């Protein structure tokens, strides 16, 4: 048995439909591991939702998505001369490239005459994108260069509810460019922000790109479980594991499915910056130093400690004396980062 994502299908689909209904022009984002669901599944789901365009992260993701979704395919990673975009001419017609440097546009259009593209404007995030002045300088050449401008793309930082000032400033930059397209592809806006913008900028077509809030917006519809593969009683001082550690006290050793191959126990830097969060990481670091760290697995109502670093496909957990001991074959709840976890099975009811 395996690490499994089970989805309450009815509840999930209801959530997806609700998001689509309140988000006109929605562009579902499918990239990476497909938010845990898999790219192929999300591609079909986006078609079922009636989206006209989906966004993928990389050119390399197109072959998995394109056969399962009939509409347009926006590639979020900006085009660079070293990118190999699809040779299939039928696919080329559906692909919308992201151009984030002025010099890339002539290069793209030389390689792919008539290509469809969006121009990415730099935001306060400063990842990719051109400055307003670069966009203005490029605007008068668009006709001469050819291709098909599909709008301007903005990738906003995460700032729930705090985007309006920046968006209005960026839209001023867009208006100033006097482009032959009125479409703005934008990420990470709250519903309230979108409503404000739709009223004040009804002359612009907003295409909200949404990934996490769409696919993972209703966590209650999702359940991640691991299987108990083995249970061993442990006495204080008993040796165990690859590394020959000894048990700190009496209890049980559990072997459960889910290891590094699934992304279990692999940590990314934490996003939180608050003092409390940092204090928590410092405390946690102390336990890390003692060779103990918290696993994502829950047994008998509590998040349990790893007994040793996770193995490739399984993990060992310490269960102290007094806790309810599961049986082989029982399923444990796990809390994981969906975007960083490879599930063995995804079951949608």
């Amino acid at each position: 048995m395996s690490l499994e994502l089970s989805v309450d299908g009815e509840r999930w689909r209801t959530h997806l439909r609700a998001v689509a209904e309140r988000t006109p022009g929605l562009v579902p984002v499918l990239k990476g591991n497909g938010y845990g669901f898999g790219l192929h599944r999300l591609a079909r789901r986006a078609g079922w939702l009636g989206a006209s365009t989906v966004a993928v992260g990389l050119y390399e993701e197109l072959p998995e998505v394109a056969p399962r979704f009939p509409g347009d395919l926006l590639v979020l990673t900006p085009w660079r001369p070293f990118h190999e975009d699809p040779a299939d001419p039928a696919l080329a017609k559906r692909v919308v490239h992201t151009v984030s440097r002025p010099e890339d546009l002539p290069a793209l259009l030389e390689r792919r005459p008539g290509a469809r593209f969006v121009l990415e404007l730099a935001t306060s995030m400063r990842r990719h994108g051109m400055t307003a002045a670069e966009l203005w300088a490029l605007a008068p050449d668009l006709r001469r260069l050819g291709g098909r401008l599909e709008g301007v793309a903005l990738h906003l930082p995460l700032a729930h509810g705090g985007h309006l000032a920046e968006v209005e400033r960026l839209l001023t930059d867009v208006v100033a460019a006097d482009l032959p397209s009125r479409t703005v592809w934008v990420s990470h806006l709250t519903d309230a922000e979108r409503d404000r913008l739709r009223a004040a900028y009804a002359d612009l077509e907003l295409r909200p790109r949404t990934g996490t809030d769409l696919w993972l917006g209703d966590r209650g519809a999702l359940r991640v479980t691991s299987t108990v593969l083995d249970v061993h009683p442990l006495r204080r001082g008993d040796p165990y594991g690859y590394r020959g550690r000894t048990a700190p006290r009496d209890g049980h050793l559990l072997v459960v499915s889910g290891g590094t191959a699934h992304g279990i126990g692999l940590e990314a830097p934490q996003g939180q910056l608050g003092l409390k969060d940092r204090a928590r990481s410092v405390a946690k670091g102390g336990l890390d130093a003692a060779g103990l760290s918290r696993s994502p697995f829950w047994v008998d109502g509590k998040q349990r400690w790893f007994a040793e670093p996770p193995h490739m496909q399984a993990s060992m957990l310490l269960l102290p004396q007094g806790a309810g001991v599961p049986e082989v074959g029982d399923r444990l709840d796990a809390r994981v980062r969906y975007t960083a976890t490879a599930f063995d099975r995804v079951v949608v009811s």
Partner: protein
Amino acid sequence: MTPTVRTISPEEHLAHLSSLRSASFLQTPAWGEVKTEWRHESLGWFDGDRLVGSGLVLYRQLPRLKRYLAYLPEGPDLDWTSDRLADQLAPLAEHLRAQGAFGVRMGPPVVTRRWSAAQVKEGLADPAVRRLGDLTPTVREPVGARVVSQLTTLGWRPQGSDEGFAAGQPQYVFQVPLAGRSEADVLAGMNQLWRRNIKKADKAGVEVTTSTGRGDDEGDLKAFHDLYVHTAERDHFTPRGLAYFRTMADALGTEDPDRFRLHLARHEGDLVAATIAVRVGAHAWYSYGASSTEKRDVRGSNAVQWAMLREAIAAGADVYDLRGITPTLDPEDSHAGLIQFKVGTGGEAVEYAGEWDLPLNRALYAAFDLYMKRRA
């Protein structure tokens, strides 16, 4: 092109203004003479020997200090279409700093958005719409957006005029476009009430005469002022003294005979409405107005507006400008009546880039900013 900036004579300044299709009357050398409380200076931008820009600077002194806020109301007159505004604004800041300025305030004469009369009317009727900005404009002007965008990056600070009338010049005005339109076109664009009132005034025998308001016509200015003081009492605002209007009539009228025109509407010898019209090039303004409380049914106010409009059309103006409106579209707001009256002309609500400040001395500017906020 990186131009240089230096003081120019009023004659050079006027010569530059007359080369433009449109410039604010607040940027004429004559306006510097009207604002007697402040030192003023005409500035020129030079590309080599060629005069390519001009501005009227009013220096407002800080109490007890020989330091000034340099103010260019509705100006300067530069090439605002440039996407290298820094080249024109940096030498301005340098010059003003050398003159003892701790900060610069200006109002770029560029439009950012326009809303048609029909849209404004809908907005007034729609309870969800509280302000002009809540409505999608008919036109967004790329040149204006580019100015706003550049000023933001260059460290200029927008001076909010969000609620009511700010201390400076209004960011939102109401204008009737005249370019390529005949009297009949303009009349047809007005709402029914305006057309009916204009006709009514005509039938009632209201006569509108014009006057320079100075020299032999000085009596007309006095008549205007008496009615204006009466209006101020009725409408609860503080009137300006007659001397202010004398200075205005003299300075503007001497600079150009078309600059300042009084319009007086009389019914059977009684003055029922009077206004001041101002024109620079192809831009005509309705500047000050007064009306009697008696005989309102003869519609002197509409008659005098129509006379000013006709005069502007005859002079080949592109724009008839009814000046400030507040951005509110909330019918409960006391300013909504004003916008409603202006909307009747069938023109458009126009948003300018607004007033912007550049601090040159941070400490003094911060102190001044605080002082202005306390006063407001």
